[in-house]
């Protein structure tokens, strides 16, 4: 059994906690959160040990792995402390707020040679995984443009108050929403973003942070595309992420439920007819050990646990990859300030 402890029990923390609790190879030994009500609930209703001091938790329970699901500004000290104490680390996104913090964490994970993973769950959604495979196989030929989008109803009126409205705490649409799209573009297109241009990050309702991000992204392989992200959009029920890639032999349209591929010529080996072809999430979704909010969250946790069990790095969502996404977030903010 892999002994796991978790720091931070917000919405994501709670969800990780339940999935870990259900994983057949995991013993969830401890949680750490400053909230009094949560503390009593866990003490009264579960067998999980409760702490308010994460250092004490790690020292006393000696977990094999730690989930860091606290606000981003606290990641660096927690992640480094866990690594120094011999723990593998899963960290939620956004990974880091500054270049310095990000680099310290990436270096520490290398130095202590521990499994490290960041919570970009889209990489475990069947449609996006299949899109990546199709891109690698060159099914749409040479790509010449992409469009990455995400919309959702997070901030719909002027009101401050939570960490999402605090730039220094890792709030803002660029951190919360755009990060997912940037990470996904890197993954599906198979090349990191190296430059951004013409960035606009308007505040629509928020006083301190951006509510939308629009920009041009340039990948290392030369491919260019657009980013369009807004979290003040109540035309959708929940966060909706999509990617469109245009190539000289066809087009790909992907969201979390559907993959559509248009090919100019029939591809018998792939079972693709000339023109439109569609694949839906039921056929692209694996059966998981436990399902709380979608298979991707279970797959993400299972990936981390299997890496630890097999003492291997599978290089999916590593600190290093997440750090690249953070660097692009910083580049977007800088570009927007200069523009």
């Amino acid at each position, binding site marked *: 059994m892999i002994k796991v402890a978790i720091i931070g029990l917000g919405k994501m923390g709670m969800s990780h906690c339940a999935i870990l609790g259900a994983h057949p190879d995991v013993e969830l030994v401890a949680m750490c959160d400053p909230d009094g009500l949560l503390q*009593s609930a866990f003490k009264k*209703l579960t067998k999980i040990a409760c702490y308010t001091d994460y250092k004490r938790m790690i020292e006393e329970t000696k977990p094999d792995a730690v989930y860091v699901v606290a606000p981003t500004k606290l990641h660096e000290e927690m992640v480094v402390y866990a690594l120094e104490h011999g723990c593998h680390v899963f960290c939620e996104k956004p990974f880091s707020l500054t270049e310095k913090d990000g680099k310290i964490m990436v270096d520490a994970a290398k130095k202590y040679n521990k499994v490290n993973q960041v919570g970009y769950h889209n990489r475990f959604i069947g449609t996006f995984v299949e899109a990546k495979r199709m891109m690698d196989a060159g099914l749409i030929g040479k790509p010449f443009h992409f469009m990455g989008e995400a919309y959702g109803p997070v901030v719909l009126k002027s009101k401050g108050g939570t960490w999402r409205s605090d730039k220094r705490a890792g709030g803002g649409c660029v951190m919360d929403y755009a990060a997912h799209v940037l990470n996904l573009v890197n993954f599906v297109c198979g090349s990191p973003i190296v430059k951004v241009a013409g960035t606009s990050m308007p505040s629509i309702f928020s006083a301190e942070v951006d509510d939308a991000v629009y920009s041009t992204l340039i990948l290392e392989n030369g491919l260019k595309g657009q980013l369009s992200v807004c979290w003040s959009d109540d035309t959708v029920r929940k966060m909706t992420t999509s990617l469109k890639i245009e190539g000289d032999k066809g087009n790909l349209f992907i969201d979390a439920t559907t993959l559509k591929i248009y090919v100019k010529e029939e591809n018998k080996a792939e079972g693709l007819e000339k023109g439109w072809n569609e694949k*839906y999430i039921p056929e692209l979704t694996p059966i998981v050990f436990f399902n709380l909010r979608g298979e991707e969250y279970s797959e993400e946790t299972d990936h981390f646990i299997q890496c630890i069990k097999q003492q291997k790095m599978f290089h999916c969502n590593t600190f290093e990859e997440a750090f690249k996404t953070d660097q692009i977030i910083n580049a977007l903010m800088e570009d927007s300030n200069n523009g």
Partner: protein
Amino acid sequence: MDKVILGDNQFFGVNHLSDERSRAQAVRFKEDQSILDVLNTAKDCGVNTFMCTTHDRIANIIALIKKNPEKYKDLKFHPCMPYAHKYANAVTELGIVGTLKAYIPGNILAVASKAGIAYVRKDFPTLMELLIDAEMKMFDGMNTPVIFLQNVIVDLLMGLGMDELFVHYAEYIKNKYNAEPGFITMNMPRMVDMCERLGIKNPIICSSINKIGFRMSGSIEEYEEYLRSDKEFRPMAMQCLAAGALNPQEAMGYVCQFPKIESVLFGASSKAHIQQNKDLIEQLSAEALKKMK
């Protein structure tokens, strides 16, 4: 429970297959009357049970229904609580205590109230009762023979190991509402085992059951084993069409081969679809029974 039950996802833009269809549905059901029209159609087809989330708009529909009590006297509701997005958004905006303050009737910070005492004592079962009452308010005067806990809560509490709350939920629903407790889950075999362990007798458990194993955690074989077993539980099937990946004939054919399944839940909006699903379920269940004899 009726064999055939109409669900509500189609009314609220929930579509597991396509974000595009989800938007189209949200447009079609913008007006409350358009939802009631579908309930009327279902009634004409002989479908009298409506399983619905405790969404704010259901309160509007019930207000319309109350204007015509004679017409809807046979209509049964299976409320599913809570409408999780409402609480998730509230927790993001108001924090946990703020959310409790907003949704528990009375003032949790007033020490003399039931809510206040429960809050001060960190009495979670009582806080849960107060939240249940708040969610059930909109169903005042309606027939609610089964009251479900949504999968997001069931599976969260199950993962966390907060077993005591399930026992308390089941007892409270029976005693206060004179109804059967129901549990929606994405992890049916695990839930059946847990209820057995906790002594929750013959629980109603609603889960995805379909030919391709979509949203059937663990494995389809394990689900089938439980559906063929003599384990004490009352299964209800949902997502039989695997979000549209299966055609109705093969989808219902698969589900109806298990006589243990008491009810089949599906979402549809047109008369043709509702009638087709209902006829298929009844006809295929009867055929399966005949074969067994």
